[in-house]
């Protein structure tokens, strides 16, 4: 893989000027579609609602794109989200809301650390590790919730999920508030450059003394924490715990990252591309629902979109 990456560097530079992430064109096409067939979806009220709905996915996508930039992947989002939902709502953990939220954050960090331990120390494939971690967490949470069903969400998260600031929902504002500093940080900071270097050529990065392992650990902890934030918003929206929370998070975030022009080892789409893609996917699902399409067609479209985006991306960067 690294060979083709090297060979195509010249082409990639050329591409950078001409090609934008598929998500931009896709969003435009979808908006046009909506304008022609379902203009009601474009009313400011509904658009704001859709953006609000996209916020949890948008947060998860930040974590996923970080992982993919350093040639890793995180498919444990679903398990993390379920775990967070259960921690927040089961009533097992004593203490106030602050303690619950701190617990959830700690849980996320632990999962990230565990993922990173297997990936960095034991050199296990990140796909398998994070899939297995998701399976493990999901199994444990479902088994536990048979003894104690999830209850109400903490009031603070309900407030964040459901309140508005002068007409604008709070959730997308939080998304934006995290997105902008992260974009700036990745562009300007040493860490951001390290991440790019690792993605471009891990062996070269290691040879030049970049703390490769440490950065993988950091990225995986960050990724799990973004999944926790995402779960916070989801729990806040629903207002109570549910075992359905975050079921599609891993797959949708993967789709959004690829659509947003970020793929293994390349952060070309930046932070904005995947964010637009998160909105695009959410808008697409709403559009499909408005056309009366059910779950099967949604799954088919989702699969087709990931495949086509991945193929288009690979075909473009290949010599």
């Amino acid at each position, binding site marked *: 893989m690294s060979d083709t990456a090297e060979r195509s560097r010249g082409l990639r530079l050329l591409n950078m000027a001409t090609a934008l992430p598929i998500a931009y064109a896709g969003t435009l096409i979808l908006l046009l579609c909506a304008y022609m067939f379902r203009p009601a979806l474009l009313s400011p009220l509904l658009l704001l609602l859709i953006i609000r709905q996209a916020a949890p996915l948008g947060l998860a996508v930040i974590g996923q794109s970080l992982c993919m930039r350093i040639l890793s992947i995180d498919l444990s989002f679903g398990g993390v989200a379920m775990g967070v939902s259960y921690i927040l709502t089961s009533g097992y953990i004593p203490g106030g809301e602050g303690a619950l939220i701190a617990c959830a954050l700690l849980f996320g960090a632990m999962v990230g650390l565990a993922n990173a331990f297997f990936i960095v120390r*034991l050199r296990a494939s990140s796909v398998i590790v994070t899939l297995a971690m998701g399976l493990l967490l999901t199994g444990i949470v479902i088994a536990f919730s048979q003894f104690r069903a999830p209850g109400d969400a903490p009031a603070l998260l309900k407030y964040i999920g459901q309140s508005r600031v002068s007409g604008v929902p709070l959730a997308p504002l939080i998304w934006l508030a995290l997105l902008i500093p992260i974009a700036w940080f990745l562009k300007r900071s040493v860490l951001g450059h390290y991440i790019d270097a690792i993605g471009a050529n891990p062996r070269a990065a290691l040879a030049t003394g970049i703390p490769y392992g440490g950065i993988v650990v950091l990225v995986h902890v960050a990724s799990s924490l973004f999944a926790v934030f995402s779960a916070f918003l989801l729990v806040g929206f629903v207002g109570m715990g549910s075992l359905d929370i975050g079921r599609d998070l891993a797959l949708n975030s993967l789709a959004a990252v690829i659509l947003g022009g970020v793929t293994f080892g390349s952060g070309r789409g930046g932070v904005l591309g995947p964010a637009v893609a998160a909105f695009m996917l959410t808008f697409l699902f709403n559009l499909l629902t408005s056309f009366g399409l059910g779950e099967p067609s949604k*799954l088919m479209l989702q699969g087709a979109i990931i495949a086509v985006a991945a193929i288009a991306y690979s075909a473009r960067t290949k010599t």
Partner: protein
Amino acid sequence: MIGRVRSRTSRSGIGIITIALPLTMFVILSFTASSFFTAQNLGNVGNQITALLIVSLGQLIVAVSGGVDLSVGSMLSLTSAIIVTFDPAIVIPLAIAAGCVLGAVNGLGVAVFGVHPLVMTLATATFVQGLTLLVSPVPGGVVAPAIEALAHGRLFGLQPSLYWCTAAILLCWLLLSRSAFGLRLYALGANPRNASLNGVKVVGPIIACYVLCSLAAVAAGIFLTARVSTGDPTIGAAFGLDSITAIALGGVQLSGGVGSVPGVILGVVTLGLATNGMNLLGVSPFLRMAATGLLLLGAVSLQRRKTIGV
């Protein structure tokens, strides 16, 4: 020194743990679960692992080439949905055709367009799962008697699952260990660039791998649907990860080039015994899911790779 290096890079991938794990499990279960060591239960284990064995052998072929196929579970479900939905005369050809198409799409995406196998097969898995739900939204339906006989009829008084297992093992072994195709596959999986420079074609064999893997899923789907005598659009959901767990337990390197049929059999038996044991000991099915995750984590930790990441 040479001996040590050779044993470390053994192509079969079978280590001490690969063999010791199923044996230990067998001994422990014989002592702890009273109903384990009975002809009835051992027959059950055989039946339970047949489908997994067939899928895992398919997964082995893809893994040897350096890929992975997460779409086997959806393909299995699709086969089940096809069998109960369409005219019994055409269901098997139809399922095989679907398997060929899915395998070809996966293979083309991976070999021609260079998409990461995980992304490609995850995408097709999602698509096929959607298609399956479209074909047959809810569990149910009737399986034609002729197809049912494939898993219930006894030939020479032996369990039909035995024939399925033997056929799958024999086919896969011939393909990997006794054919030029298998030899090329090991070369491709170990180092695609070297193999290609030595005149091994890359695109064709890789596509063939994914087609064979999807066909294995179709075969498993036919057996499983015939055995339970009804259709279920989510029957294969767990098979993608289970088959990867099984081959990882069997010493197959997911980075390619290392793996063997005996190893996969051992891996499948390990997983089958674990599931059966937890069943007998009354462990909740959800905790069994968690245990599969744990086993998978343990299995991949045993493999030593050089690269960090996917």
